[in-house]
């Protein structure tokens, strides 16, 4: 405080010092620490665990890493399965088309589904 008044040269240092003293800090309320712990508890961060995760996950992993990775894997697996089924069907249709007893006409329209089922 004295430093403030000293450096405010030319402005009546003695008068400024008590003036600035009025800007006093607030005192922390008694429940300050318990308030912090309560917030940490709500955030699930007590005892070093920011987010509760299964024990088998590596210690350094946290939900922001694990959850997006799991979601991405699920999406990739679902897309892989869908493409796999679609490709399998395409192969089946190709085989059906190559069958000597089936002409191009029989593969068109409503015969297609029946033909592919028959070849399977």
């Amino acid at each position, binding site marked *: *405080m004295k*430093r403030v008044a000293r450096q405010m040269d030319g402005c009546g240092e003695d008068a400024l010092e008590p003036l600035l003293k009025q800007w*006093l800090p607030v005192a922390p309320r008694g429940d*300050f620490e318990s308030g912090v712990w309560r917030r940490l508890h709500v955030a699930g961060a007590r005892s070093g665990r920011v987010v509760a995760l299964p024990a088998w996950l590596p210690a350094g992993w946290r939900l922001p890493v694990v959850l997006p990775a799991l979601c991405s894997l699920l999406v990739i697996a679902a897309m892989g399965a869908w493409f796999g089924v679609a490709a399998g069907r395409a192969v089946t249709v190709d085989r059906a088309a190559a069958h000597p007893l089936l002409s191009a006409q029989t593969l068109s329209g409503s015969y297609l589904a029946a033909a592919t089922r028959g070849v399977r």
Partner: protein
Amino acid sequence: MTPEAADWDLVARVKAGDDAAFDGLMERYKRPVLSFVYRMIGDADEAQDVAQDVFVRVYQALHKPRFRQRDARFSSWLFQVARHAAIDVLRKRRRRPLEWLSPRHEQGATLSDPEPDAAGRLAATELGRQIAAAAAELPEKQRAIFILADYEGLSYAEIAAVMRCSVKSVETRLYRARQSLRLRLGALREK
């Protein structure tokens, strides 16, 4: 053991899962953090919330695997976190302006040397409000540097670590802050 080493020792214990060590850190720094935040945002009730949030952020940061000790002093890092928390509040206020330091906000303030009579206390509160208003006119960086230097007693090097700028820049901003306050409070003094 120096205070800085004692702080980092407590930090190491917190990282190892000792929550009592975090109570020790709070006991040591709750007053300076609350005081700094209060002077930055000017609202006693909100300052209590923000100061608690600062310690929540610190606790969470300490438990992150990538946490590294970058500053020589724990307090420098702590004041950085407090400053960013205060800036968040000021930004929110800019989007949703509130009356700066209304009398309701001042009710939470506790004077360490209270006036014996109600009139004196009211006058002190009014003066405090005017000083806070004068400081609130300062740009955020100047205000933070002024508070850290003149109320929290940090050295220029420590302030430079908190503000992530050079010591020269701290000196310049502090000089400008004092000049601005001198002008604003000079008028107040003459009343």
